[in-house]
């Protein structure tokens, strides 16, 4: 299997090249075939790789394939080397498998678009970059994938480039993530200075020997890596780009801004876990950022009216959970949440895409409604996804992953009650807005004229994802229910087991609290938006709730803050110096010599007698000087 490793990223890359160069001349069928086929074959190889990994020596299996020496000089050698271990495999599986489903969906969803080829070219390039990111054996290659996905995200958010707002959203996404990326690359420089290597395994090996726990250098490195992750994964305070990124086509939101790219930060931190383990401060910061994010974004998700923005904020919030888990040292729980989240969030986005398309590009949920009867299949799929998002106990995948995170937030070595409460508040909010979403969009009366229902190419991916949103959780059960821990065992070869602190209450108490909170969240949503909508209307008219709603709706005013703090000063600074102050300096020299010239040229008036007089005066002057000296 090892020698075919390169095919996984190369196939989508080949798809990209073909579509980018020859896309104009290809028929839509051929484009769809190339774009979707390349990712599907990559998914197939990835699945073969997984089975190979499972069936083979289940010990420390690592696949390595060295393609070529990228660059090498002095003490630095960087190869284009792919390295796949259990952690990478999870990501590869999600990227290719969910990616393939989304590609299939998109081949129908985007069919009417003029730039069909460009869409699939960008999507394929994205898949290739993302695969390089998770298969990289050194940090430079990882950074290559990291920036590559950023660029594809930029290209796809701005896919409908004729609308200026889309381009602005794309620019915003690129620039804000670039800020994080720059922190990441400074972290890479620092790692290289301290360790003299950029190979990930070498770094992970040497770091514990080189650094003492909690030393300044390692904390700086960890925080810089964290900042990189925060940019990509839209964590507070770099989260503002993700809601705007919904300007892209819905399959893009599903693939890039829900399932894969935004979890790159989670991958990075999990990949560099040794560094983080050496720095308790960085771990706490990670967990704190995760908890803050999950509440901040959750609150915003509660009040949004645009279905895609709700899902976007919910994505930020769910990634907040992953960061929280990473921060408390629950590595496999974080990755497990990534795993389930990829399924149900991709599902929700795709289903939302179907709804939007069905209602002639209507995105406001309050103008939807009554779709349960028209789109029963989509409804049940969406229900499965929303249930999973809300973490309905036992029958949804989200429950298993979120339950693990909540448990570890309290009881892991880095956990404490604050993180747990933050997680619980988040769980309530999540359940609330999931219920709100389902109730408002699918129940009640129809409010908008409908179009034609989705075809089979679009529904089959939904059904597969819905199935997985329910069942994917069964591979990892809470410790006190069933002794099934396939997922954490799988990751055990890469990530350390979570150490627990003493003195925590029995697990089932925490679980029951969490379940009660979740169910009450769902009930609140159901009550407020279906049973008794008058309460809500009353709140809307009173002052404080309306102000709070406005505050949450604007994403906690982060955009306005950055606008005042960064954007305006920057525009002012560049605006006043548009004509380059140094140019004025050199122009000053020019002006001075021109003036000087003018005053001298006064003497050159062309009168011969004037000149003769000048000569005479000169002679007299010289003679006088001669006589005096």
């Amino acid at each position, binding site marked *: 299997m090892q020698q075919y490793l390169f095919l996984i990223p190369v196939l989508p890359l080949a798809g990209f090249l073909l579509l980018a160069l020859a896309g104009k001349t290809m028929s839509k069928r051929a484009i769809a075939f190339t774009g979707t086929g390349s990712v599907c074959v990559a998914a197939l190889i990835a699945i073969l790789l997984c089975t190979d990994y499972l069936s083979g020596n289940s010990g420390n299996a690592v696949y390595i394939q060295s393609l070529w020496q990228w660059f090498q000089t002095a003490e630095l050698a960087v190869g284009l080397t792919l390295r796949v271990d259990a952690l990478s495999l999870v990501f590869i599986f999600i990227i290719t498998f969910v990616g393939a489903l989304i590609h299939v969906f998109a081949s129908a969803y985007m069919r009417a678009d003029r730039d069909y080829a460009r869409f699939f070219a960008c999507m394929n390039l994205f898949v290739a970059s993302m695969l390089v990111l998770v298969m990289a054996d050194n940090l430079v290659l990882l950074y290559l994938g990291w920036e590559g996905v950023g660029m594809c995200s930029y290209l796809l958010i701005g896919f409908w480039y004729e609308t200026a707002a889309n381009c602005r959203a794309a620019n915003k996404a690129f620039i804000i993530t670039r800020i994080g990326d720059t922190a990441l690359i400074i972290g890479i420089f620092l790692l290289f200075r301290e360790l003299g290597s950029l190979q990930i395994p070498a770094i992970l090996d040497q770091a514990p020997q080189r650094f003492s726990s909690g030393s300044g250098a390692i904390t700086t490195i960890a925080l810089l890596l964290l900042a990189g992750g925060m940019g990509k994964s839209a964590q507070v305070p770099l989260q503002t780009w993700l809601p705007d990124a919904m300007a892209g086509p819905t399959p893009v939101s599903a693939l890039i801004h829900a399932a894969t790219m935004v979890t790159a930060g989670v991958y990075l931190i999990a990949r560099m876990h040794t560094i983080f383990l050496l720095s308790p401060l960085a771990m706490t910061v990670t967990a704190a950022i995760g908890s803050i994010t999950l509440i901040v974004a959750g609150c915003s998700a509660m009040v949004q009216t645009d279905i895609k923005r709700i899902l976007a904020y919910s994505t930020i919030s769910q990634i907040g959970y992953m960061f929280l888990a990473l921060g408390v040292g629950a590595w496999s729980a974080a990755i497990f949440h990534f795993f389930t989240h990829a399924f149900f969030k991709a599902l929700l986005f795709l289903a939302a895409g179907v709804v939007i398309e069905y209602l002639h590009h209507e995105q406001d949920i309050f103008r939807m409604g009554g779709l349960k009867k028209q789109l029963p299949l989509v409804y049940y799929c969406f229900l499965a996804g929303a249930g999973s998002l809300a973490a309905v106990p036992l029958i949804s995948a989200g429950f298993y992953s979120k339950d693990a995170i909540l448990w570890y937030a309290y009881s892991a070595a880095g956990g404490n009650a604050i993180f747990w409460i933050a997680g619980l508040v988040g769980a309530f909010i999540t359940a609330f807005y999931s219920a709100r979403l389902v109730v408002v969009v699918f129940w009640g009366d129809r409010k908008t004229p409908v179009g034609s229902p989705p075809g089979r190419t679009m529904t089959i991916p939904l059904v597969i994802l819905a199935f997985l949103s329910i069942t994917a959780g069964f591979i990892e059960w809470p410790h006190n229910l069933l002794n099934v821990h396939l997922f954490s065992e799988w990751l055990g070869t890469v990530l350390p087991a979570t150490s627990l602190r003493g003195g925590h209450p029995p697990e089932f108490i925490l679980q029951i609290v969490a379940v009660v909170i979740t169910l009450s969240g769902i009930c609140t949503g159901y009550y407020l938006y279906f049973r008794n909508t008058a309460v809500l209307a009353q709140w809307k008219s009173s002052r404080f709730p309306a102000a709070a709603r406005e505050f949450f709706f604007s994403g906690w005013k982060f955009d306005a803050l950055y606008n005042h703090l960064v954007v305006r000063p920057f525009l002012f600074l*560049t605006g006043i110096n548009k004509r380059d102050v140094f140019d004025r300096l050199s122009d000053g020299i020019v002006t001075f010599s021109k003036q000087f010239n003018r005053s001298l040229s006064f003497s050159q008036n062309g009168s011969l007698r004037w000149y003769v007089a000048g000569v005479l005066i000169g002679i007299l002057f010289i003679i006088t000087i001669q006589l005096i000296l």
Partner: protein
Amino acid sequence: MILVIPIIVLLLGGCSCWLSASKRFVVCRWIALVAMLAGLVVFSSLAMTYRGGVNGTAWLIDYRVNWIPAIGISFHIALDGLSLILQLLTYFLGTLAVLCSWTEIRQRTGFYFFNLLATIAGISGVFIAMDLFLFYFFWELMLVPMYFLIAIWGDSNRRYASYKFFIFTQAGGLLMLLAILALYFIHGQQTGAYSFGYFDLLQTTIQPSAARWIMSGFLVAFLVKLPMVPLHNWLPDAHSEAPTAGSLILAGLLLKTGAYGILRFVLTLFPEQAAAIASWAMLMGVIGIIYGALLAFAQTDIKRLIAYTSVSHMGFVLLGIFSFREIALQGVVMQMLAHGISTGALFLLAGMLKERLHTREINKMGGLWTLMPAMGGAAMLFTMASLGLPMLGNFIAEFLVLLGTFQVNSTLTTIASIGLVLAAVYSLRMMQSVFLGPLAISGTYRDLSLREWVIIAVLSCSIVVLGLYPQPVMDLVKAALNNIIHHSSGGI
């Protein structure tokens, strides 16, 4: 001897262009193209021959004949990996410059190609001259025809721009001439043998106080060319007013002569003094990165915008050179190549836009992707290159420069990294206001023609290859860079 042939071919070709144009001006562009291609072939074959390097020395070819022996001037040219790589770039971009002027230049075509070829000959000579007198000769040779290129075939404000260009570079050049003469006399008085030879002058020991002044003479000339803020302001004017090929050569090659000069002469002739000013020079480099980026963001003239990105990018070169690290110097060489290609390509695209729309004002553009998807795609590629996207050459360059510099001065490097964010800001702004957004113009405009497509495709391939497989370049210049570091290490 083989090194002289391309230069002679260029000069002869230039003269025959001038002469033949009066009869048939179509002939002269073919002459120019063949002359450039001949040089490209010669140096490509040399690069193939010497890709493994020569054992024991950094110098691959050394050719020397006496010229004016009475005052110690010889015709001494030599080639090492650094020169070879820059020669390749010279003839590569030279060929493209001829191609992009194919239809753009309609008046005085013969004289135009004469100037173009003479400039390239001068640049080519600068990269191999090992006698300071000869070096100065070539230095002036590339300057004067460039002045004509801007002054005659430039845009509306061409006189101002060409004078500014000439005066800035000439003032720097004269200071360098003074410095060369001072070095010559000091060396002569010490050893009794008066010589302009680079290798002779390397042996000179100069009093520190004198050395500082002499180095400044060299440095000013090179920093004006590089350019370093605040000596940069000839550049936006010259770049924006020059014809497309002129901008290409200015950005792609002329700026590199400054970097080459610092590497070849300043670091090795005055190691102690260079080390003494290193942190200041790095600071100026960082200021250049940030300042250029801020200015680039504010511009509305597309060629001025790209010109300021050059200022920003060349800041990385200055930063890297004065870190004296092999990694950083490798990055510097990569930056010279990658910047030459990517910024050259952006200027070409700007030229093509100007040819079609007759404006350089980005506020009058917008949504051009719809009309010219191929050009838009190319612009996207090179914009991404210029903001340092991995996979493309500029990333390797900036990464290596910053990585090497970080070990010397982490604070400055961190500030320089802000330049990466700013690069994204100005690049995306350019992309958005030219190619994206709602369509701002009406009428039909044709996408890339076959000739333009070939130019762009060649440049795209080179930038991608540089980004994914830069190792051959790095192997080729390794010995030369180590030689420079070896000479300059006395100062550290």
